[in-house]
């Protein structure tokens, strides 16, 4: 049998279509791997039958199974968003993104662990325990799509679906040494994706390489009549093949990158800039004058939206109901017991920010900052083709290292949040390994590239060329997944 473990999603699809491996063999291989999950990456794993439950079509990727973040509703399959409040919930419908994969003939391997309601940067906010980093199980895989990143990097799935609100695909991809793409807001339907911050949430792929990211995006993207904010990508997406970066300009926002960045991360970043130049690209310094305020604005806007999005978990219609003493205690006890501390913190923040008399000082001002950041990117893309940064200021940190200090934890998203606020596409590709400041094991470093809205094809081409030049080896991670 072919070496399925070594194969990317695209290569696996090719093995199936050439007859070198059967779809059954492929599914069984990955179900076996998933069942040996040593990373707490899955909250639920499929069997042969349930994996193919919604699969009713075929496409170029038919037969290659996908791991799905537990934030996507899947009909009849437990969907919790890693929250106690949705324990036992079986959705009556399937998210559009998952349905598109199924329609392409792709089975579902399982539902992956995450920070509760996608709120977190380390996966430690899961009600079902943190997922672990396959490169070092004492460290976090990042978040919130930590489970998706861990199972792909740890060889427990060929590829996975995640969501990104302020960096939740890119940061864990960076921490785990894989590729994570957050498409333009509106590229992929949000229907059936449990909402955290609706104006920022976007679904995207976590994959072993850039080609896989492109192929999944090609299947996922498109306008959906169930999501009024979805528009799709004009012209679609095809597999990238660029080898050079001639004529392309990469802008480096030096003002942003100075802050609290680890030496090893910075070193890999600078080396990658040199590779870009070697491939014919031009590096220029740019300003994103308001990006420094992105975290502050984000932690007003996202909680504000979350506070209303999460109000539906009231114990009335589905999920957990903790009390039926009277209406108020039903609401209060259900939500007190059902939500974890970070979710409660953000609901409180958001509720406060929207309260009468405070709205303009908080939500209103944060919206104005967002508008400035959108303008910053527009101006930047007037001068350069791409904006590049490290994906995160640090490599994967240790479990428990930052849980006591939310503000320090929030800084993990320093480089990813500006692109989310601007709504532009951004990708994280592995740029080598580095030790954390103060020593430790060699861990993956992510390199982030952002492009103008709906310029995904161009972004994927450049990423593909750069990926080949970097030649990252993720095999050490693949060894770290099984129990």
């Amino acid at each position, binding site marked *: 049998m072919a070496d399925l473990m070594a194969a990317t999603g695209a290569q696996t699809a090719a093995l199936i279509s050439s007859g070198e491996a059967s779809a059954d063999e492929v599914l069984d291989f990955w179900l076996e791997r998933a069942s040996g999950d040593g990373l707490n990456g899955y909250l639920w794993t499929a069997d042969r039958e349930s994996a193919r439950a919604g699969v009713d079509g075929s496409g170029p990727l038919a037969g290659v199974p996908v791991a799905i973040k537990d*934030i*996507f*509703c899947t009909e009849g399959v437990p*969907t919790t*968003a890693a929250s106690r409040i*949705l324990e036992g*919930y079986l*959705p*009556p*419908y399937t*998210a559009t993104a998952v349905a598109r994969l199924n329609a392409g003939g792709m089975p579902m391997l399982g539902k992956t662990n995450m920070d509760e309601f996608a709120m977190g940067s380390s996966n430690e906010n899961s009600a079902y325990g943190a997922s672990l980093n396959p490169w070092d199980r004492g460290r976090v895989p990042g978040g919130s799509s930590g489970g998706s990143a861990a199972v792909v990097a740890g060889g427990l799935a060929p590829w996975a679906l995640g969501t990104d609100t302020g960096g939740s695909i890119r940061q864990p991809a960076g921490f785990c040494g894989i590729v994570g793409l957050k498409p333009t807001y509106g590229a992929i339907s*949000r*229907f*059936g*994706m*449990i*909402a955290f*911050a*609706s*104006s920022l949430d976007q679904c995207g792929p976590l994959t072993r390489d850039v080609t896989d990211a492109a192929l999944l995006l090609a299947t996922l993207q498109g306008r959906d*009549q*169930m*999501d*009024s*904010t979805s528009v799709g990508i004009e012209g679609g997406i095809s597999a990238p093949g660029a080898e050079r970066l001639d004529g392309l300009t990469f802008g480096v926002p030096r003002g942003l990158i100075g802050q609290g960045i680890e030496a090893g991360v910075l070193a890999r970043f600078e080396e990658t800039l040199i590779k870009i130049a070697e491939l014919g690209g031009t590096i220029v310094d740019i300003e994103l004058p308001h990006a420094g305020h992105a975290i502050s604005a984000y932690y007003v806007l996202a909680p*504000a*939206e979350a*506070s*209303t999005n999460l*109000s*539906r*978990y*009231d114990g*009335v*219609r*589905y999920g957990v109901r903790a009390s039926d003493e009277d*209406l108020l205690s039903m*609401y209060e006890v259900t939500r007190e017991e059902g939500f974890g501390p970070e979710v409660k913190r953000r609901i409180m923040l958001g*509720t406060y920010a*929207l*309260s*009468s008399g405070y*709205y303009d000082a908080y*939500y209103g001002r944060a919206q104005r900052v967002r508008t400035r950041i959108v303008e910053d990117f527009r101006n930047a893309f007037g001068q350069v083709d791409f904006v590049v940064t490290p994906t995160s200021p640090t490599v994967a940190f240790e479990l428990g290292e930052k849980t006591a200090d939310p503000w320090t934890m929030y800084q993990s998203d320093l480089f990813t949040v500006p692109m989310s606020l601007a709504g532009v596409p951004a990708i994280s590709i592995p740029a080598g390994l580095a030790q954390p400041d103060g020593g430790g094991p060699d861990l993956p470093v992510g390199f982030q590239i952002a492009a103008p809205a709906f310029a995904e094809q161009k972004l994927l081409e450049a990423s593909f060329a750069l990926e080949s030049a970097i030649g990252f080896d993720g095999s050490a991670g693949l060894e770290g997944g099984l129990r």
Partner: protein
Amino acid sequence: MSTEYDAVIGLEIHVQLSTKTKMFCGCELSFGDEPNVHTCPICLAHPGVLPVPNQTAFEYALKIGAALDCELSPVSTFDRKNYFYPDNPKAYQITQAATPFAIDGRLGQVRIHHAHLEEDAAKTIHTGGAGRIKGSDASLVDFNRGGTPLVEIVTEPDLRSGSEVREWGQLLRATIKQLGVSDVNMEEGSLRCDANISIRPVGSETLGTKTELKNMNSFRFIERGIEAEIARQKEVIASGGAVEQETLHFDPSTGELHSLRSKEEAHDYRYLPEPDLVPVVPTQAMLEEALKLPELPAARAARYEGIGVGEQAALLLSFEVDWAEYFEGVLAADDSIEPRVAANWVTGEFAAELRKQDDQPLAESKVDPASLAKLIGLVASKKISHGAGKTVLEAIVADGSDPEAVVAEQGLEQISDSGELEQIVIQAIEDNPKPAEQVRSGNEKAIGALVGAVMKATQGRADGGEVNRLLRQHLGL
């Protein structure tokens, strides 16, 4: 001398649109079906669902905006209004707070502040107790209604009394009904009205503290509720107190007002622009379609009054399109009939006869406008008397026969030979010496008894005017 007070009233009217499906999902709209059969993950607010606006609802809303002479917004947006209640499954209602679809309108004497689109709540039923949540055994929620498209119309405080509110409310209802965008049935809740009421000393321009009277299911009750609340506020002030901002419920069976919640208990709705919906920009075609309005009741009433129809009859006809069309059918059948006379026949004798005979709906009446015109013509040209006309009407409403045939059959033709009539008059005076004497000695009212006697003798076939003239002549008046 005690201070005189004026009432100041503004209304918030909710109109359920009669679209096929709900505002943000594909569930069918219905009234009276089994509970919870018209639901889906979207209107039950399952995790991950998104709203998709109903295009027809928006078109209907624009029609209402146009009929209320509003400025139609080139861009309108949706907002979330947050509050927890089991009838509100998302715990927020999608509404239009910042940019409603229509602003600055007018209907009759009342200015419209704005009209906005939103979704209706589900229906909560509290079992046991008094049907209120307090003291009930259980609360049940029927989500069939949840998500029904609603247009909320908010007026300026331009109304001054309960009866003004009733009359204006009826005009509004008739106007929307004619647009065909809502059933506007208050009992079924497709039209609901809240009133904001305050009082102030006559001549003052400052508004007093207002109270809100919630959800009454007929304009009569609204009228009574408002009058009761105005009286209550006057009493509070007369006894040295101050009106407090609160929400009230009027119980029409007892005439009592109950407080539902005070200002302190008022919600902070934490409005937020709805991130799941893009702004709605009506196309030029949609705007043009909305502005293609039929003749609306207010304009129709004015036109009828302009051709001499009395105010009451003009309003009655204008509020019901089928009656107006019937009336115009009568005029078209015989242009010699005076509109005032035709309107009185249609809204008076004819409507009464339909009610009398099994409450026949107009649409099912056997009498077409041409027949009624013929009957009115017979009376107007004095071929039959007004009394005989009613006899004919009774017959044609019953079986749809031809008025002239009825006249011939029953021999109802007016006595046109004044010689014959004169003999009957003389006989009547002879037979009734007492009233005749009373009339001669100056009591002209007594002539009624003599007219009655003549009518009886002629079986109503005599022309009243002619009878009067002959009686007076023979009584020497």
